[in-house]
C-alpha cells in the first residue's frame, strides 16, 4: 500500500535550537516515530490558520526515536530559507504543528556488514545521522563526508560525529575542513576505506556528481533526491524525475513515493527543465 503508516498528526515542538545556519527541532509524535525509517520525510503545514502558503513543506527526518521518556520523538534540521521554513523555525516550544508522515522510501540497509560511505550536502546531512546509527548497530563501518558552501552550513552535531568512524568536512570557500566540493575528494576516500556502498543526500548537482563517481567505480549508491513537491503523497505529479523502471524504461516518476531514496543508477541526471530523449510517452 502506498503511504503505508502515513498519518496526519499534531506534533508538539519540544525543542527548537539554532545550530549554525540551521534549526534543530524536536517534535513529540507519539506512535508515529516507530514507523519512521532513515530516509523518510515528513510534510508540515506552514504559516498558521490563515496562511497564504497552502502547501506543506517536506523535511527529511533527521532522527526518530520511538521510546524516549516523553514517548516517540522525531527530529528535523531546518534551514530558514523562505516564508515556510522561517515561520517553522520561529515557533516556540509547545506549539503544535500539523505533520503528515512518515512519507517516501527509506535507505536500504544491507543484511550483512558493509563498509559504508555517507555523503551529505548542506541540510542533506540531516538524515544521514539516523542512518549511521542503524548501520553502526548492524556492525557496519561508517565513514561520512559532509560538504557545504561554507562552515556555517555544515550540519554535524557532536554526538553525530562521534558515532561515525571517520568524518570529513569540505567547504566550497575553505572556511572549514577541506577546500573544495565533496565530489573532488570522494575517489580517494572510497579507495582508502574500501567503500562498498554509498548513501547520499543533498543538492541534485552533488548527487549527480557522486553518481558519476559511483558508476565509474562500480559502487552501489543510494541517494535521496529532491524536487519541488506540492503534495508529498503521490497525488499531484509535480515532483517527478526521469527514472528507469524495472524494465529499464525511462518514466517521469514521483520522487515522493518512488523516492526520495532511489538507486542512483535509475536516475537520468541533469535533466531538470527537459524530458530526456526516449522517455516513455515523450512529449
Amino acid at each position: 500500500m502506498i503511504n503505508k503508516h502515513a498519518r496526519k498528526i499534531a506534533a508538539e515542538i519540544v525543542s527548537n535550537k539554532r545550530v549554525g545556519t540551521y534549526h534543530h527541532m524536536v517534535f513529540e509524535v507519539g506512535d508515529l516515530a516507530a514507523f519512521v525509517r532513515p530516509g523518510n520525510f515528513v510534510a508540515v503545514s506552514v504559516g498558521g490558520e490563515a496562511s497564504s502558503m497552502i502547501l506543506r513543506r517536506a523535511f527529511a527526518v533527521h532522527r526518530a526515536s520511538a521510546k524516549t521518556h516523553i514517548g516517540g520523538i522525531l527530529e528535523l534540521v531546518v534551514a530558514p530559507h523562505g516564508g515556510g521554513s522561517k515561520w517553522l523555525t520561529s515557533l516556540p516550544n509547545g506549539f503544535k504543528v500539523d505533520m503528515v508522515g512518515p512519507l517516501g522510501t527509506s535507505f536500504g540497509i544491507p543484511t550483512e556488514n558493509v563498509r559504508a560511505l555517507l555523503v551529505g550536502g548542506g541540510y542533506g546531512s540531516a538524515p544521514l545521522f539516523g542512518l549511521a546509527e542503524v548501520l553502526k548497530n548492524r556492525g557496519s563501518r561508517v565513514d561520512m563526508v559532509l560538504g557545504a558552501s561554507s562552515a556555517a552550513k555544515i550540519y554535524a552535531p557532536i554526538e553525530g560525529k562521534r558515532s561515525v568512524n571517520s568524518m570529513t568536512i569540505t567547504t566550497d570557500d575553505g572556511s572549514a575542513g577541506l577546500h573544495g566540493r565533496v565530489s573532488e575528494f570522494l575517489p580517494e576516500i572510497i579507495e582508502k576505506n574500501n567503500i562498498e556502498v554509498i548513501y547520499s543526500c543533498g543538492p541534485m548537482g552533488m548527487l549527480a556528481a557522486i553518481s558519476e563517481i559511483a558508476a565509474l567505480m562500480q559502487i552501489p549508491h543510494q541517494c535521496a533526491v529532491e524536487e519541488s513537491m506540492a503534495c508529498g503523497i503521490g497525488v499531484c505529479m509535480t515532483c517527478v524525475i526521469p527514472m528507469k523502471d524495472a524494465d529499464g524504461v525511462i518514466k517521469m516518476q514521483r520522487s515522493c513515493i518512488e523516492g526520495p531514496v532511489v538507486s542512483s543508477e535509475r536516475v537520468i541526471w541533469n535533466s531538470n527543465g527537459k524530458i530526456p530523449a526516449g522517455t516513455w510517452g515523450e512529449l
Partner: protein
Amino acid sequence: MSFDFSTQLGDKRFSNPIFTASGCAGSGKELAQFFALEELGGIVTKSIMMKPRSGRATPRMAETPSGMLNSIGLQGPGIDRFLADDIPWLKSQNATIVISIAGESVEDYGLLAKKLDGIPGISAIEINISCPNVENRGQVFSCHVDTAYAAVNAVKTNLNLRIPLIAKLSPDVTNIADIAESVHSAGASGVALINTLLGMVIDTNTMKPKLAGKTGGLSGPAIRPVAVRAIYQVHQRLPQLSILGMGGVASGRDALELILAGASGISVGTATFGNPLAAIKVKNELQDLLIEKGFASVAAAVGFAHRDS
C-alpha cells in the same frame, strides 16, 4: 427531520456531493491509506489520453499567494493501460468512478468514448476540454463554442453507455455561459467548473519563468471567487444543467458557497495537497452546515443564492 445527502449529476445519483478533482487524487491508491474511497460521492480520475504521455519537464509547480501553479502536462499511461490497471483496483475499493478523458483532437475524443463504451461500473465521464487542440494552433477546445461543441459531440456520438457526460470548462474565456450552452447542446448533461486559470510565476533569482513549461494552471483558494462567479453565471443561464463545482474548496463553508451558486457536486483538488483528508473534512463539514441551515437535501441548497433575483 431526515436529511438527504445524496445528489444528482445529469440523471445519475451519487451518495454525497463530494468528489475528488481530476489530477488531484492520483490513481486513488495514494489516498486509500487516509480514508476509504467509497466514502466520497465519487473519485474523478486524472485526465487520461489515448497514448502514454510523459507530461512536461520539471519544475512543474510554484506556490503562489493562496494558490499554486501546476504544469503537469497530462502525464499518464494512456487509456488502455489505465483501464487495465486503475479501474479494476478502484472497483475493488467500491469507489464510485468518474473517468476524466482528454484529447488532442476531436477524433481522440471519439476514440476515447469508444474505449469506455464496453466498461461496466463507470458512473459518469468528465470530458476535459481545457486542453490544447493540436489541430488548431494548440488553442484549448473549451475556448471556443465550436471546438467545445465538437469535442463533446464526438464523445456523445461514439458512446452507447447511458451515463452523464460532464464537460470541464476553462475559466479563461470571455463568456463562459456561451461555452456551457454549446456543450449542453452537444449532449453534455453537466459541466465541471472550473479548471485552472492560466498563470505564470517568474523566479526573481534566475529571472526566468519558474515552471519548465513557462505557464501553468492556477488553482487553490485564490481562484474561488472566479469559480463562484462562473458557477453562478452558468446556473443562471442554464438552471437545468448539472454543475460539478471546484476551485479552491477546502472547507464545508467553501463547498456550500459553490452549491449556493449552483453546483450539485463539489470536487476537492488542491486542498488535498495541503491535507490528505481534505475531501472527508469538506464532506463532514458540509453535511453539518446543510443540516444546521435547515436544508432537507443537497438539492434544496443548489442555486439557493439565486432566489429573488
